[in-house]
């Protein structure tokens, strides 16, 4: 048989090489061949991919973790201490022979592309015996738990950016901070005087700090959907799912499909990778399955689905909703406020939300300079409706902790600040984990908040900023009242639905979640 091995030790000058020699002698004595990669101090020459592909089994005799272990994914693997190869090389070779024979007898035991046994794996929450419904919620929860740190980091930074911008830039600061700064060189000529923060950061300028926080937070937010999709796919297909999931999620982000598009990408990528990794392929191909075949085919298929199959209906939906909304101008303003509220909360930053938000900001531009116009009321309604989902869920996690999983409870704390800053994305982790109960609850609260703003006649001169643009809101106290009422309704609805619904996902997962939360924060 043919084997490959890796040896290593803390100092990298003695045991590494003695172990390699021990394995080579034992293999030769037993009539096998082995190529050993010595990951020592004298540099290391990597085993060729061909050698790894041709090997019947892999022996790791190591004192420090194997470098680039993923190269060996899918191979039968023997894990041992480096001293074992020095004292008992023949024993390790015998174990490798047994593992190779077991693999040959039952090739499905380790599908190509699955991590080698004992590989340091990321945690998933998936229990094998669960029902389909429970599986789906566990897959979603895995994606959510990896996404939450990105939401918290990005959201809090953006909120702090608004805060600083208001402090240093006055009441229009939160508007300026999102418009006049970028991380790339501005167009030339530069009619709007955009400042490239990456090249010209000035520590003495408070607005530069605000812009830095905003831009870095926005960069973190760009990963919400890719990470959500990637780890849903990871929960479904293990490691092979990660690549198509992340790429599909990035495409969902780019085409504006929102977190619902990301969930779709996660499922498509995950199941594609799972299916391909279960193909029975000739031995020669097996070695390149995890590094070439599975990623290539699964990313290609997922990308095709996201761009070609999903892209066109998405565009049609966006166009249709936009023209429908434009046709509504002139109808009862309270009804319009309710409709906009429903749309804002439906997909929390996805295409429907974007249509409502764009409708409002377009009106804001058209209304520039005037006050009290309908367009400014629309903007106020949209912002109120975008603030209630995170606030309502933060409230719900505070008063009924037991209805939420540990990661959700942690996200609930950040959601206060995110909601107050009109960062609707703070609600996404809740919605992605349990869309059927959370989304209707959010829609109810946002609809009420949107309608109330119209009743109160609030106006807003800024496209974003939440409580940090209060000076730009007409009748700010009534505006806050509308937001508070909407948040209470969302919280009450989600508590009622979660308490009444079938066993919430967290009850059978409390332990796994506690462990996973540690992995996430580690």
């Amino acid at each position: 048989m043919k084997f490959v091995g890796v040896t290593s030790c803390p100092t990298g000058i003695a045991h590494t090489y003695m172990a390699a020699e021990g394995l080579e002698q034992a293999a030769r004595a037993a009539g096998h061949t082995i190529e050993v990669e010595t990951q020592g101090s004298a540099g290391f020459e990597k085993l060729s991919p061909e050698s790894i592909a041709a090997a019947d089994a892999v022996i790791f005799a190591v004192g420090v973790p194997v470098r680039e272990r993923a190269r060996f994914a899918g191979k039968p693997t023997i894990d041992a201490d480096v001293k074992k190869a020095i004292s008992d090389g023949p024993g390790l070779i015998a174990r490798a022979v047994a593992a190779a024979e077991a693999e040959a007898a039952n090739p499905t035991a380790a599908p190509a592309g699955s991590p080698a046994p004992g590989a340091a794996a990321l945690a998933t929450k998936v229990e094998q015996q669960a029902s389909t419904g429970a599986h789906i919620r566990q897959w979603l929860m895995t994606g959510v738990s990896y996404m939450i740190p990105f939401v918290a980091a990005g959201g809090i930074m953006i909120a702090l950016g608004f805060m600083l911008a208001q402090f240093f830039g006055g009441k229009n600061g939160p508007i300026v901070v999102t418009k006049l700064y970028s991380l790339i060189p501005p167009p030339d000529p530069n009619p709007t005087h955009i400042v490239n923060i990456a090249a010209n950061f000035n520590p003495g300028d408070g607005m530069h700090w605000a812009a830095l926080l905003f831009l870095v937070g926005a960069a973190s937010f760009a990963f919400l959907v890719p990470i959500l999709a990637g780890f849903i796919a990871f929960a479904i297909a293990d490691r092979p799912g990660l690549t198509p999931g992340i790429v599909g999620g990035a495409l969902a982000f780019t085409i504006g499909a929102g977190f619902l598009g990301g969930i779709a990408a996660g499922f498509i990528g995950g199941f594609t990778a799972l299916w391909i990794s279960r193909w029975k392929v000739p031995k020669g191909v097996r070695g390149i399955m995890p590094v070439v075949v599975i990623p290539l085919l699964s990313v290609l298929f997922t990308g095709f689905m996201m761009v070609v199959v999903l892209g066109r209906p998405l565009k049609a939906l966006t166009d249709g909703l936009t023209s429908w909304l434009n046709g509504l101008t002139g109808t009862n303003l309270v009804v319009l406020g309710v409709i906009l509220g429903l749309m804002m909360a439906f997909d929390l930053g996805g295409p429907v939300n974007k249509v409502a938000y764009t409708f409002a900001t377009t009106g804001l531009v058209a209304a520039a300079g005037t006050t009290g116009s309908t367009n400014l009321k629309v903007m106020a309604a949209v912002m109120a409706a975008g603030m209630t989902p995170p606030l309502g869920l933060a409230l719900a996690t505070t008063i009924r902790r037991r209805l939420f999983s540990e990661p959700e409870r942690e996200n609930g704390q950040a959601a206060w600040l995110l909601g107050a800053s009109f960062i609707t994305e703070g609600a996404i982790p809740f919605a992605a984990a349990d869309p059927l109960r959370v989304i209707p609850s959010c829609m109810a609260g946002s609809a009420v908040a949107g309608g109330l703003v119209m009743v109160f006649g609030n106006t807003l001169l800024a496209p974003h900023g939440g409580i940090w643009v209060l000076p730009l809101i007409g009748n700010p106290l009534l505006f806050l009242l509308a937001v508070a009422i909407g948040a209470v309704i969302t919280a009450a609805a989600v508590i009622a639905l979660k308490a009444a619904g079938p066993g919430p996902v967290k009850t059978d997962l409390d332990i796994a979640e506690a462990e996973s939360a540690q992995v996430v924060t580690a």
Partner: protein
Amino acid sequence: MALITENLVVLNLDSADRHAATRVLAQALADEGRVTDLDGFIADVRKREEQMATGLPGGIGIPHARSAYVTEPSLAFGRAPQGIDWGAEDGPATLIFLIAAPEGGGDDHLKILASLARRLMRTEFRESLMNAPDAAGVVDVVTREVVNP
């Protein structure tokens, strides 16, 4: 410079324990100017030894370290006919190899130590060292097997 010289061979190492034995061999390295700070180097070796005892089956001990106090890759060799406990399960060590590697150092420098480590796994090599009549004989064996194979 050579990996080992006659001055780095101790044919009758009768220290009470491995720490004393290590000090004798390290002193030889320091006397030859291959180790600039004896205590610093010994501390480095000891740190490595505490991670995992370096005694190995077949009666050998390989205390070793990469250390800033080492000027070039060197081997100090000791023969301890009465045996010194080096933490191996199958008994005390009779052949002690103190391997000193400089902290930085190019790959080429360290390759000679890799080659030495591989030879330690060969029974003939150990027997030749065990049976070498004198220090010059030990240096001959190492030079023939490791330095100019």
